[in-house]
């Protein structure tokens, strides 16, 4: 056991571990929010409005006297939920499209990938915002909209990875022994293209958090009183002078979660592809 620890190459996994620690802490906040948070995120306290950080309220209170620390902890739930669901939507549909394009080739490939390239040419925020206009503002719709934004990226990656796998002998062999399309895709292709897609998923997580908070910041995502880092930051705008902590705290929360996922993504990329480094 000790020798396992000693032989573990900490330097190689440094980035992943750092990012993982940050995300781990945030996940703990998200999962155990009701037990960790000192107050309810919704309880108003008119007497304690816009209080600066103190012993009673470690990070101060907002314009309705709600405890900022508790709201920030609870908001981790929405961010993590959105990140998880949006990245999953992107991962699942993107992979399906990418694999289908590479597997069937020809016209299917051309039509699908042209459409993906087209979606890719819109700036992500613009696409998300326009989708929100069509779907209506709610946090569920924000997840869907952000998920759709991710589809082109995942599909491109899945297609490239599938093409590599298709050139391998064993897919030829599977075809030769009469394996069906479905089994070839699920048994031979998917397991072999997973690694790059997971790295991309880590990046998608961080991007989803950014996009969700931007949408909520604009009032298009999570709706008050439900706390989200984005809409808290939006509220904070009105009190930048009197209560700067209302802007600093939720922004820092976004920053650390994005940083955490980026570190994991960068780290995984280095570990999986040693040639990328140096």
């Amino acid at each position: 056991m000790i020798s396992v620890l000693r032989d573990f190459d900490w330097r190689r996994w440094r980035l992943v571990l750092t990012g993982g620690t940050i995300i781990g802490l945030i996940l703990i906040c998200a999962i155990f929010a009701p037990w960790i948070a000192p107050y309810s995120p919704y309880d108003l306290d008119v007497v304690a409005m816009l209080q600066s950080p103190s012993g009673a309220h470690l990070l101060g209170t907002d314009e309705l006297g709600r405890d900022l620390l508790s709201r920030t902890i609870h908001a981790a739930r929405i961010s993590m939920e959105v990140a998880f669901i949006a990245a999953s939507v992107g991962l699942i549909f993107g992979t399906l499209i990418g694999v289908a394009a590479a597997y069937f080739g020809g016209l299917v490939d051309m039509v699908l990938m042209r459409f993906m390239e087209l979606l890719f040419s819109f700036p992500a925020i613009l696409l998300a915002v326009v989708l929100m206009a069509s779907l209506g503002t709610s946090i569920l719709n924000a997840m869907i909209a952000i998920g759709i934004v991710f589809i082109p990226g995942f599909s491109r990656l899945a297609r490239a990875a599938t093409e590599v796998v298709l050139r391998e002998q064993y897919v030829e062999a599977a075809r030769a022994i009469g394996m069906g399309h479905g089994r070839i895709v699920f048994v031979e292709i998917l397991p072999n293209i997973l690694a790059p897609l997971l790295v991309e998923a880590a990046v998608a997580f961080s991007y989803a958090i950014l996009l969700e908070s931007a949408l909520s910041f604009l009032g298009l995502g999570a709706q008050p009183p439900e706390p989200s880092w984005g809409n808290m930051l939006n509220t904070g705008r009105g009190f930048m002078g009197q209560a700067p902590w209302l802007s600093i705290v939720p922004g820092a929360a976004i920053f650390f979660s994005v940083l955490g996922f980026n570190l994991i993504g960068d780290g995984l990329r280095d570990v999986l592809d040693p040639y990328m480094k140096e």
Partner: protein
Amino acid sequence: MGRLISTRLAAFVMTLFAASIVLFLTINILPGSAAKSALGMEATPQAIARFEAQRGLDRPLVVQYVEWLSKTITGDFGTSFQNSVPVGPELLKRIPVTLELATLAFLIANLVAIPLGTLAAARHTRASDKTTTFAATVLGAVPNFWLATLLIMVFSLNLRWLPPGGFTSFVDDPAQNLRQMIMPALSLGLVSSALLIRIMRASMIEVLSSDYIRTAHAKGANETIVIRRHALRNSLIPYMNVAAVEFGFLFGSAVVIEDIFRLPGVGSLVLVGIINRDFPVLLASALTITVFVLVVNLIVDLAVGLLDPRRVKGSQA
């Protein structure tokens, strides 16, 4: 070069056409909601029917699209649902604001990324490289709208050096215009530079390890000449391709940043269109931003063609 331009132009027109379909369909796919938001939730079915009939919203989407497209091509962007004001002139007034914002931000991003990325690559594996890479990682995780808020708190509310928002045309008062633009451009540009630093560094490291750089050293060129004369241009070729995409993203982020700094640009018009469910406004402003993105990609593509002599002559694509 002529052929390169014409093929790129053709691709540009095709993409724009396809993009207009996607935008139109996305915005119009749910029927009826436009009338409801314009008339209020208590509107009678008759009133909604009348509203839709007046604006042709009851016809098939294809017909609506063709009509919208043919009008848009002639410069008629329709009238706002909200206040029946023509969208075209409003858009025209706002275009320079967004163009200025994104261009300034792009300039800042490159002015930071090209020297820092180059420096990090030249000091590859040394402390200053590690510092730069670390700084880029940190900067890349900062949400630009948070940076904008922090800048306002420091430079407008505390130090009172810069106005927290508003817009004055550059023609009317250049100094005031720049004072109002510097923070929005910085919040966009600095965050963008984070990614670009890493791209520039990677590109420069790759170039510096190539044989022709060894040739330059063997001729007796010093480090400065090697980088400025031999490595810079070659490493800018892959860099510019990424920078072009980033430039496009700056136009997208303008939606958020213009809102924070109360800049009357196309981005904030997108937001107005969404909040009022004013579809002609939303469609026109979103399409304008898409055109910006595509034009920027086209220009950068051609600029890279100029940097790379292999693409100028004997261009296949």
